[in-house]
């Protein structure tokens, strides 16, 4: 660990034991050839590999490390989680995608707003590896939740749901779906929306995969026709779903960002430097001997270091003050646009050879090491999780206190 980082982040000495044990575990557990195995894997192969990898993490206590022991966790502190995710990324661990929603979105909401019975019902299933999906976005409700059109109508002891969701990752495999649906049509904007758990095997649920722009079926559309959801599946108060959904944006996600930063360091920057050592300029000289390239690399190298520092600072603030707040928006913009610039730089530096198409590497997220593809895929980070335009509104309004835009007359509030 770099000494300069230790001065700010989790102290080196205190966590050396954990760090070393995760490092040893990674070396013993992660198949060195997993990228080659997963290159071009089909959906079935991907899911199978993901399940295998989840089981390995679970065995080691690394699957839900931050959970209370009563629900199957090992109660890792925030700095310990930072160490864990750093080391997993350093060890080139595969990305665990299938339980992203269950662990980082569904569980925090249930822990925050669920009844004891609901916790009893859902958390052990999540801890055992159940796959969930998230039904928030709709074709007309992207940046603006006011456009949410899926309706849930109460009928005695259940709700009847009709509508359409989009960008539901893992919808085909998921057993449960956390769903936002409008329960009060007359309430303004973010009011009148409720938060449900929907069984994906319910009659009336139909899932269609959407192929993304690099050719992977990363997302699905989910259609709901007269789907019956028992009233006991309502999480939090009726019409209070917006607040519940915000609970999913907690410290867990900040910690997950630490892993992303380390991934960008290892798989983006360092792999770029390794790969680029073999690339040549148009005149045949090594790219790494060119002063323009070196200047650019020096700058990007520093910016990746800064990413790690700013994330560490955010986690430190979380420890002391709780709640990531609008700072998380700052980090999201910085991370996603740095990723995009780095990938575009690498793609262009590679020249024509960088345009060659190779099958994608499942379980790798953006870091396939094919920089042109990774550049294209990087837009999922500037668009997804709240577009960077929305993030800049949040920073301007919540950090600096600038006024919101005037609302057009007649627009829903």
């Amino acid at each position: 660990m770099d000494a300069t980082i230790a001065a700010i982040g989790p102290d080196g000495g205190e966590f050396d034991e954990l760090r070393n044990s995760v490092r040893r575990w990674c070396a013993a557990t992660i198949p060195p050839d997993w990228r080659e195995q997963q290159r071009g894997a089909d959906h079935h192969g991907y899911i199978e590999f993901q399940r295998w990898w989840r089981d390995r993490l679970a065995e080691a206590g690394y699957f839900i490390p931050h959970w209370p022991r009563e629900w199957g966790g090992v109660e890792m502190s925030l700095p310990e989680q930072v160490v864990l995710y750093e080391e997993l990324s350093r060890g080139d661990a595969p990305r665990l995608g299938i339980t992203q929603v269950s662990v980082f979105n569904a569980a925090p909401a249930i822990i925050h707003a669920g009844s004891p019975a609901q916790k009893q019902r859902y958390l052990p299933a999540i801890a055992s590896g159940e796959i969930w999906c998230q039904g928030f976005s709709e074709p007309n409700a992207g940046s603006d939740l006011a456009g949410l059109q899926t309706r849930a109508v109460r009928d005695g002891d259940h709700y009847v749901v009709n509508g359409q969701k989009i960008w539901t990752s893992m919808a085909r495999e998921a057993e449960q779906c956390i769903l936002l649906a409008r329960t009060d049509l007359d309430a303004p904007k973010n009011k009148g929306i409720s938060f449900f758990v929907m069984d994906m095997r319910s009659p009336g649920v139909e899932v269609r995969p959407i192929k993304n722009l690099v050719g992977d079926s990363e997302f699905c559309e989910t259609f709901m026709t007269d789907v019956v959801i028992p009233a006991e599946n309502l999480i939090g108060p009726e019409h209070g779903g917006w607040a519940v959904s915000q609970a999913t944006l907690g410290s867990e996600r900040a910690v997950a960002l630490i892993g992303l930063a380390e991934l960008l360091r290892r798989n983006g920057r360092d792999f770029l430097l390794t790969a680029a050592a073999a690339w040549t300029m148009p005149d045949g000289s090594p790219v790494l001997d060119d002063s323009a390239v070196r200047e650019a690399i020096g700058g990007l190298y520093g910016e990746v270091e800064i990413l790690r520092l700013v994330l560490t600072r955010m986690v430190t603030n979380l420890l002391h003050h709780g709640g990531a707040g609008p700072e998380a928006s700052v980090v999201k913009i910085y991370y996603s646009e740095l990723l995009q610039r780095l990938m575009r730089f690498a793609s262009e530096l590679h020249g024509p050879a960088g345009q060659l198409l190779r099958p994608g590497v499942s379980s790798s997220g953006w870091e396939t090491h094919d920089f042109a593809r990774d550049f294209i895929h990087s837009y999922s980070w500037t668009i997804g999780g709240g577009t960077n335009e929305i993030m800049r509104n949040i920073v301007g309004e919540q950090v600096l206190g600038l006024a919101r835009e005037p609302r057009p007359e007649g627009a829903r509030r």
Partner: protein
Amino acid sequence: MSAAGMSSIERAELCQTARRVLVDRAPMGRVRALLDDPLGHDPVLYADLVRLGWTGIHVPDASGGSDGLFADVAGVLTELGRAVTATPLVSSAIIAANALVLAPNTVAAATVVPRIVDGTLMATVAFAGPGGHCSAATVGPRWTAGADGGVVIDGEATFVLDAAAADVLVVFAAGEDGIIAAVVDRTDGGITVVPTATLDQTRRPATVRFDRVAVRSEGLLAGPVDGTGLLEATVDIGATAMALDSFGIAEVVVERTADYVKQRFQFGRSIGSFQAIKHRLADAVMLVETSRVAVDNAAAAIDLESPTPSSRERTIAVATAKAYVCDAAVTICGDSLQSHGGIGFTWEHDTHLYLKRAMLNQAMFGVSSWQRRRVADAVLGPIGQTGVNRAG
């Protein structure tokens, strides 16, 4: 059409025709159907383009063409970019035909070029080394002296556009005495074509392997004295073609993005009314309008200047257009993806087709950093001899 080229009205009409023809016969559905096609282009469409005369617009009448200017055919290349058309027209009738026409050995032009124009034959150029770059220093194939004044060619050329469809290859090869150019049949013994898929699936580059391919002296297009100049002129034509293609992409993507943000509503407003979107599109308009004059200038420079070796003015005009316009198109496509949000991230949406093609245009025939350094070399003189060589 006169030897002085078309009038601006004629050029505009040609562009309108091209746009109509491509909308009609190569609509997006056809483009998508060809993405995974092994041949990668539509022979029926190609025959149509030949009939329309587009394979010969700027070819001298002595070689069966219409004796127009490169600037006359430039608009067609832009329309091919707009329509992301999969066609070997550029590799064969523009780039390879130009190399043949400009070659010191005029016999080849007289025999091969008319057949390119009449569509009975396709040609392409092969020169790039392992990195796919375009400088004389990194030519892939190697030549050694052969029997009777001929040569023997070995090695590999990468990023040979439409090599699998081509009947004839114009190959540049480096040797101890310099670079030569030769014309060979693709089916000659010792030649192997290995298709290489790129992210952009509307084009079909390949790696071509030469294993002791003997070329007779008649097949030599340029010897070591003229070869480098012919290569430079060929790369300049290719670079200008890429810039024109990217300009077409930039133009249509701005139009499509503007249409989308007018009808996409969020927060009770069309998203185009938000300055974040509006100002990004205004920047795109600025890039398109400046790109327009840059490509026109490059096309005019191709016509005006003595073609080989590259003159200072042509280098500045072509290299500026290639770097500026190809970079602009990638930026515009990326920004368009951002403005479209999730829908632009899907395979079904056309954004990725434009973006990937713009990225390949940017990479081929001289990356932007190289082109900008060519401008600097032309203006400042080579490194170590930086006397400022002022314009005008």
